[in-house]
């Protein structure tokens, strides 16, 4: 470092030491500055509030819509499932009713039929029994298929038709043999 530099640095140091520790602004200016600062802050705050509010409202609406749609869809799916279950239950109940009626009618018929077989042609007796077994087997086959495919409307119709054929057979025999 040169001698001249030392002198300059000494001057600067002396000047710094002469500076006061704090400077108060003039009394008439401070209130104006504070007012300006507060006004800017308020503006800034107001501006920032106006900026995110529409997005927040839109997001809320969107959220509400999505939520409603999801709820609606879930409700519809639930209702559809519920209706499907009710339909399946009704179908099962209807099938059970048909089965009960079928068993009742058949049991009564077989009781009466057995009592009359002595007076009937043995070939006809064997034929009637054989065909009742055929129908019973057919009903079992359809039921087995329905367990795999419960909603199959055509199979349900075919089952009802087959029950009907058994009733028809019984009625036919009763008509041919009025004592049964």
């Amino acid at each position, binding site marked *: 470092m040169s001698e001249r530099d030392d002198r300059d640095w000494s001057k600067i140091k002396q000047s710094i030491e002469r500076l006061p520790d704090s400077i108060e602004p003039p009394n008439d200016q401070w209130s104006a500055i504070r007012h300006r600062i507060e006004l800017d802050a308020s503006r800034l705050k107001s501006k920032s509030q106006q900026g995110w509010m529409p997005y927040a409202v839109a997001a809320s609406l969107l959220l509400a819509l999505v939520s409603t749609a999801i709820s609606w869809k879930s409700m519809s799916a639930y209702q559809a499932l519920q209706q499907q279950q009710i339909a399946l239950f009704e179908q099962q109940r209807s099938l059970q009713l048909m089965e009960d009626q079928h068993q009742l009618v058949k049991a009564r018929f077989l009781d009466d039929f057995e009592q009359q077989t002595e007076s009937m*042609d043995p070939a006809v007796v064997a034929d009637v029994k054989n065909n009742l077994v*055929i129908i019973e087997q057919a009903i079992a*086959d*359809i039921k087995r298929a329905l367990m795999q495919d419960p909603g199959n409307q*055509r199979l349900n119709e075919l089952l009802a038709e087959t029950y009907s*054929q058994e009733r*028809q057979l019984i009625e*036919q025999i009763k008509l041919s043999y009025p004592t049964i």
Partner: protein
Amino acid sequence: MRSLLLLAFCISSVWAATSVDETVAATGVTEISIENLRGKVTVTGAESELVSVRGSLDEVAEGFTFERRGNSIVMIVEMPQSRQLRGRKGSELTVLVPQNIFVRFKGVSSDIKVTNVTAGVDLSTVSGDINVLQVSGELDLDSVSGSMTVTESQGKLMVSNVSGDVSADLLSDDIQISVISGNAELKSEGVKRAVISAVSGDIELGLSVSESPYIKVTTVTGEASLHLLNSLNAEVRLQTGPGGDILNRFNDRTVTSSFVKEKALEFSVGTAAGKVQMNTVSGTLVIK
């Protein structure tokens, strides 16, 4: 010796078939009702105002009723209550009636043949055969194991049979046939409604149908074949259960099959005004 001769006479008089040859006036008569347990009865319509019967009664018949009751002629071969009838001969009767008379018949093992009447028939047997030829009006036929034949006839047909076969060739707009193990073969023209069912028996139909027919054919294990002889206007639906089969020789529509092996064939043809429905569980359905 004398007592032996008397016994032989008694036996012969019991066993011998009694001949009949009787006639009653039938003016205003609308119906004849015949009851014959076994044997054979032939009823023929004629241009006449008389009802006559000729032939032999059942060897064990106890009597014979042949009389007019109101608008009906009643003919009954009276039989004993005990049915020890083996080895004995049944009735063989030929009955002539006015053409426009309704014929009602009940028999057990008696065959019945009715020809040339116009007011319809109601024929019922257990094992006897039924033969209807050139008859018009309502045809109501019922048997258990007897076969049935209807030819050159016309009118509503209602048939019920268990194990006997049914063969009908007639002109009828309304047909109902129900068999169990017997087979049914039907040819008809002008059919508006036909409902045919069988359990294990087969069904073969050759039908010329009306503009809007209703045809329903149902079997459980039997084969059902429907041959349509004229143009069809109907919704057609064939369906089987598991194990059944469908042969479509009517058009090129494909038979569908589900994973439970039930099959279906559905299509509309013409104006689709009528309905053709065929169902089976494990039999085969054929449409052509």
